[in-house]
């Protein structure tokens, strides 16, 4: 008992010392903060600070962004969103900041951090943040929020979703026409409505151009597990698939990794179809057949700009489809995809836009 008492006493003492220390440091820290705030463009972002001119345009708009567990370096979706904000920061001097969530318990406090910190717009990136964002939006009716990939029914929230099925249909067309083994694979992150749109669209695209091709569907159960992605890719490639379309965030990085090592080893040529961003820029043309681009960056930029311009309305849901260039293939596809196939893709694209073909979504 005595020991316990002593233990708690010492612990308390340490806490007090630490806290006292912080109390003293607060002033200096704050001034430090102020100092950094001016040059925030450099510190907040990992963008080259030197490119920011000293007389960068200033704006007192503050935009915050909460990622899911993937973080802003996931080479996909969260990164797209953050890069859009970084661009905005360079262009119009908007102050930007992100918080990465460690678990789904973090969503609410992280959103609140921005909302209560007086940010003019708070982004939630990802389907999983839907519930948390709704809770925060309803509790803070004066705050402005926006979300990607989920529809939140609140007057102060702008929701942006994408017609992933349409874009996926087009990469499905590429895959169906490129495959030599007539076997292609799909690796989803988690079985959610969003990923389902990728899966269904891709499958429909392959089947539309190559009825003999077999599409194997797998789910990794996670967006942040490149190791799982790598081992699933190995399974698929071993089974004779020569193209894999991962829609699984950072988990997909493992798929690229596996494909790269196979191609380097000089076996049968295998391909990966990138997702969300033009991933050939990240992983190179030798493995990236094409990418299903989802213009998260465009959406983030557009809605954030509305806040800057004072035209933010809220309560709306925007669906970005092929028609709006919200999804699609990048220019770099030319490197690996033949003219003929690209022509075919263009043909299907027009048919989808004109409504001649309706791509299933679930």
């Amino acid at each position: 008992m005595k020991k316990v008492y002593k233990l708690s006493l010492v612990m308390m003492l340490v806490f007090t010392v630490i806290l006292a220390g912080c109390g003293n440091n607060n002033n200096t820290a704050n001034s430090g903060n102020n100092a950094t705030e001016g040059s925030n463009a450099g510190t907040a972002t990992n963008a080259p600070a030197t490119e920011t001119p000293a007389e960068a345009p200033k704006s007192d708009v503050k935009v915050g962004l909460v990622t899911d567990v993937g973080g802003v370096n996931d080479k996909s979706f969260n990164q797209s969103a953050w890069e859009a904000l970084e661009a905005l920061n360079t262009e119009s001097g908007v102050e930007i900041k992100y918080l990465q969530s460690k678990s789904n318990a973090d969503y609410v406090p992280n959103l609140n951090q921005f909302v209560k910190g007086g940010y003019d717009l708070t982004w939630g990136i990802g389907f999983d943040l839907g519930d948390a964002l709704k809770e925060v939006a309803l509790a803070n009716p004066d705050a402005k929020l926006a979300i990607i990939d989920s529809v939140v029914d609140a007057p102060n929230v702008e929701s942006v979703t994408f017609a992933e099925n349409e874009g996926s249909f087009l990469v499905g067309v590429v895959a169906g026409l490129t495959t030599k083994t007539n076997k292609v694979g799909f690796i989803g992150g988690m079985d959610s409505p969003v990923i389902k749109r990728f899966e269904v669209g891709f499958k429909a695209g392959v089947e539309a151009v190559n009825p003999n091709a077999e599409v194997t569907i797998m789910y990794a159960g996670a967006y942040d597990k490149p190791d799982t992605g790598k081992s699933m890719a190995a399974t698929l490639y071993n089974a004779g698939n020569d193209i894999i379309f991962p829609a699984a965030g950072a988990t997909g990085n493992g798929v690229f990794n596996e494909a790269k090592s196979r191609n380097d080893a000089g076996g049968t040529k295998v391909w990966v179809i990138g997702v969300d961003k033009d991933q050939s820029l990240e992983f190179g043309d030798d493995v990236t057949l094409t990418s299903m681009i989802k213009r998260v960056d465009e959406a983030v930029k557009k809605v954030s700009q509305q806040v800057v311009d004072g035209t933010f309305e809220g309560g709306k849901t925007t669906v970005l489809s092929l028609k709006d260039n919200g999804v699609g293939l990048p220019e770099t596809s030319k490197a690996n995809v033949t003219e003929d196939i690209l022509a075919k893709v263009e043909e299907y694209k027009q048919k989808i836009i004109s409504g001649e073909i309706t791509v299933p979504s679930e």
Partner: protein
Amino acid sequence: MHRLKKIFATDSYIVPIVAVIMGFIVGAIVMLIGGYDPIAAYSSLFQRVFGSSYDFGEAIREMTPLMFTGLAVAFAFRSGMFNIGADGQVLIGMTAASLVGIKLSGMPTYLLVPLAVIAAGLAGGLWAGFAGYLKAKRGINEVITTIMLNWIALYLSNYIVKNFLLLEGQNRSVDNPASMSMTFLASAFDNARIHWGTVLALAAATFFYLYLWKTKQGYEMRAVGFNPHAAEYAGMNVGRNVVKAMFISGVFAGLAGAGEVLGVFHYQSIFAASPGYGFDGIAVALLGLTHPFGVILAAILYGMLTYGSAGMSFGADVPPELIRIVIGSIIFFIAAQGIVRWVLKPFYFKRKKEKVS
């Protein structure tokens, strides 16, 4: 394994405190190297925790499951076992609380909530007790079984949520009407998700202390934990104590699950991966020297660090990976007691040596 036991069973409290301080220092050095201001970072860390009543409440929310899982690991440890499976037990506890809360939603709240909490505790206890049973009857190492049971728990929970409790079109269960939230405190904490689980965790720590050191059964468990051979010679049923200890350990973990589902989220998500409460619990138990009150203090510290880490990236632009380095360093310094002792040698080691004889 034996080494680990020695680390856990140490009764010196100076080591963890110095380890914490050294962890902070290493974190500061890493920040300096990375070009960040450690003073600004640490002050934003504490500001995030103590800055507003909302954040303070949320920090308490963050600490609560750590208290439970820390107690769970510590309790098993005191009985000579290493419960790596607190994570799975949390999940099973969550699922039980969800099943009871959602499927029996017709019941009056004053019955439904206690029932859901009890179900969570029981389910976690049985889940861990099963590993204990395998150890007692078949001699299978509990480290292995509890790790395996973690995976089973993860996929079983996801299966149950997906097939029986799913909210259409979402990655989660329908809302759970059983609520452990302390709504009367909501305004005081600016709607932070404060819930009864915290009170329950403190009660669990008290129970832990009284049970292990004041009761006949606790005496048996400690004897089995220290020396199962002598316990057997003295006529104690070692196997039964193993199962019982794992059961109680699992109950603690299961209650953490109840707190999360009934107090924080009010629904259960489909988890992409283990939420990790159990593994943090090992760190907390280690930091708290497997003493129940030490565990509570350790959970408070660990929770503050975890919750405050967002403050570091918000206030000082320190990337979230860095706070992991700080936490990792603290754990490292506790595990590598030798280093801490070495630092302390001039003041401390001599005295420690003399205690032996």
